[in-house]
């Protein structure tokens, strides 16, 4: 069986396996993933965190790399943490809002 074609949908679906252990929701629905860049077998994910100085910084970045490397078509995975634009709760999906019992 050949490896599935790498595309954004597959990457986002894969990144839904990476759950923020404090909030209990995956990073895609939290709105932390800002973008992906696919160059052959190399994938770069541009993402943020809910707050600067988040203690889960390294863990979540490792999780993203681990999850992507688990895909057959990915040989190299990189994570770029960015702070502009800063994350805001309005970036969460309806599912994430349910997870955190969001106010307002």
């Amino acid at each position, binding site marked *: *069986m050949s*490896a*599935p074609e*790498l*595309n*954004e*949908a*597959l990457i986002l*679906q*894969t990144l*839904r*396996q*990476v*759950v923020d*252990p*404090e*909030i*209990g929701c995956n990073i895609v629905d939290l709105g932390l993933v*800002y*973008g*992906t*860049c*696919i*160059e*052959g077998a190399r994938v770069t994910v*541009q993402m943020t965190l*809910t*707050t*600067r*100085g*988040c*203690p889960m*910084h*390294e*863990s*979540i*970045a*490792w*999780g*993203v*790399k*681990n*999850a*992507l490397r*688990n*895909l*057959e078509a990915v040989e190299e995975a990189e*994570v*770029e*943490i*960015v*702070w*502009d*634009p800063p994350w805001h*709760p309005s970036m969460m999906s309806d599912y994430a809002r349910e997870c*955190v*019992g*969001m*106010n*307002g």
Partner: protein
Amino acid sequence: MSDAVKTMIPRAVSSPGTTSVSSLNAPSIALPLRFLAAGLLALFTGVVLLVLRPEMLATYHYNQYVIAVTHLFVLGWICTVVMGAMYQLVPVALETRLHSERLAAWQFALHLVGFAGMVWMFWAWNMKQVGHFGCVLTVGVGLFVYNIARTLLRVPRWNVVAAAIASALGWLSLAVCAGLTIAVGKCSYDSAAALAPGNPFGTLLVGLKAVAALVARFDQISAMHAHAHLGALGVFVMLIVGISYKLVPMFTLSEIQSPRRAGASVLLLNVGLLGSFVAVLLRHPLKMAFALVVVAGLACFGIELLAILRARKRATLDWGMRYFLTALSLLGPLAILALGLSWPGLPLTALTGQLENVYGFLALMGVVSFAIIGMFYKILPFLVWYGSYSRQIGLCKVPSLADLYSPALQVAGYWLYVASLAGTSIAIVLGNAAAVRGGLLLLGLGLGTLALNVIKILSHLIRPQIQPLTLRRAAAASL
């Protein structure tokens, strides 16, 4: 690059120094874990001692046993846990690296020897040895202050959190110096005369004798109260205020609503503390005015905290946060009690003495300890999770932080602790030793639930609970 598929948003840019995944800001988890373990041991020992001798709280507090147990709680429990947590959290929260992990390991050894020896010698009321062990502790505190100060110097963005931490470091240095000075004042230096002229120890003893003569000019109880205020308010309350401005928005998905109000709270606390220290030491009538400045700082903090909580996006507060916020709410009655006890001309009756005991009990076991236990439920699961699961995330299904302990035990512990604070405080006011023992037994039960949860959390270091991901490679292939 022609076949590259990019879906980056255009405005997103990297911040310097924040993009590297391998930039580990936090020290190894073994460092904070040993501080937390030693702190818990001191807490349980202190509660057992109080249960065995409830009269320590049911009678006036100026005696060797109360001073020994107070230092066991303050240095052994609170300081140890706070120092361990700061080594872990300050670099992470302020986006920098700890200056030296090796210095922190040395400080741990000096701190253990220093505080254990001090408590033992306070109990035996051997002030000379208290001074010696106090010097060991002071060297450790010096290493801690230096290490954190050097870490703060690397902070890329100075803010209210960094300002509060820097203030607390200053107050910690002063509190330790004040404590050592009081110990020097309680020793005799007759042996100086027996030493040969020119002996360096003789010169040192003569210097200490001069310090003792200076200390003797102050009222000893006032000096002790001034020293206690530097430690309790300057170090612990200042740290709680500063850390709250980082952790409460982070855990509730909110943000600081008024940086000016937050800054004003730290400034007012610093001004009020400085004035209070001098006024308490000299028994000056301005004590009340400076107490009001401290209360104004706490009021600013309370208003800002409420605004942060009102703006939060996370509707339900977890129980760790409830412990923490309940502890902070106790600052209200504590401030009222402080104002009452600062009233000019307040007679020192038996009731006044018991109210002072309640003040100390509520400050240390209510505000500071309860807040620390709340944060303990955040920090310990994180450290253990980090050690057991951080490399597995994305590869396996790993538990969340809340899965590491029993929420039922946590809730039971909360109510037992609250009931104990209320019951013990009433018993102290009444001066009833049996009732104090009853209240403290409730406290012991509440802490027992914490102990069980600590064991449950630590068990994940030995037996991690990892499950396969629900979405496997094969499933992904079908997309």
